[in-house]
């Protein structure tokens, strides 16, 4: 099992979130990963999407449980838990996208 994120690394990530959260973009590539990294928040397949934002493209996980997303869907960048651990560790939040 992967170790939890280190606090300094979490901190460096979190100060960059605001550059993207709330921004909208278009999905240009999408796939469903049946096999995840070991610290995935869910046993369910995770979708990742290549999203074209105004400033740049980002490869983002898709938030679980929302309406279906396909190529061309308009999405918004937001925040979710990215990994899960039983350790008494800092929770790893990170950028994802969902339909909007």
């Amino acid at each position, binding site marked *: 099992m*992967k170790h939890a994120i280190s606090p300094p690394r979490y901190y460096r990530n979190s100060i960059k979130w605001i550059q993207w959260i709330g921004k909208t973009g278009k999905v240009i590539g999408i796939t469903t*990963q049946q096999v995840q990294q070991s610290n995935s928040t869910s046993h369910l397949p995770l979708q990742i999407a290549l999203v074209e934002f105004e400033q740049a493209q980002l490869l983002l996980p898709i938030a679980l449980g929302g309406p279906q997303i396909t190529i061309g869907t308009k999405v918004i960048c937001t925040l979710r838990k990215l990994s899960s651990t039983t350790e008494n560790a800092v929770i790893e939040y*990170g950028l994802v996208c969902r339909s909007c």
Partner: protein
Amino acid sequence: MSTIYIVGSAVTKFGELWDKSLRDLIQDAAFSAIKDATLEPKDIEAIFIGNMAANQFEGQSHLGALVSSFFPHFPPSMRIESACASGSLAMLTAENALLAQRYNTVLVIGAEKMTDVDASVTTDILAGAADVEKEQRSTFPGLYALLAQAHMQKFKTTSEQLANVAVKNHHNALANPHAQFHKEITVQDVIQSPMVAEPLHLLDCSPISDGASAVVLSTKKHHSNIIIAGTGHAQDTLALADRKSLTEFASTQKAATQAYAQANISAADIEAAEMHDCFTIAEIFAVEDLGFCKKGKGGQYIQQTQTRQELNPSGGLKACGHPVGATGVKQIAYLHQQMKLGRWNVTLAHNIGGSGATAVVHILKQGKNL
């Protein structure tokens, strides 16, 4: 500039090798290659070992020192890492040392031991070959699935064409005693295998393997007439999201151009190519980016009954196996062995790191084509 001869080579069996440790594999390959070269261990002046993740798979860093300690004279030794291109970059590093006239005869090893840990741990480790900040939750099947999708969308490449790559390579591997798999498969088998990351099925993906390979390079002939005629090494963005195109590897194109120029040949002269088919789509990219066929026509090209060059005759990564650090060296070792048997005179080895961030191309020539 000195000519670099491949004077000896060896490949271990690739597969789930429960009774072989990383050290066993390294020593098997190393000393077999030296024997193949009809040299002694003490003739090796330096060692270059390509390995991606021994420090994560088993906590063993400082591989250069470990390998050196297997030799009575402790030759200078270093580990080179570039994810799945570690092996070919170890080759390049060795070649540069020879061309700098620092050494005359050196040993290159590629090795990886992957099956001691759970598959989920392997997935985590291999994810390190991606951009861990920009591709945080992505797995390698996921990244190559996006590439496959883009190619299928733009060029109408089909799942059957992807599957055909795996079918061909499994068939080729039947003649390779070192290959991990000796099993014919059909296009239906591939398409009906479980989806890993759509559109890539399980049988579109190369396996997790243990294995090692080694090559002895020298500026002296040592009865060999197989040389490294050309090399190329190029990079591209680590993160897919930063790429200019998702339907080609610019790194392969640039590396191939460098290698063809140095070897004074064109793509049409290649008789056999060992290419980096970590996923079936990667071989389709390769035949296009190496210039064997037009961009977008790779799937069709590979489907032909007879192509101008033999494609992944060893079985490729898909059927021969893909111990990550070993692959780049194994490609060259395999070509060397087959060329010694007189099978070809001009061959190519193509090794990729990550999702196309690193590409290395080697051209081998033999005999009167030197």
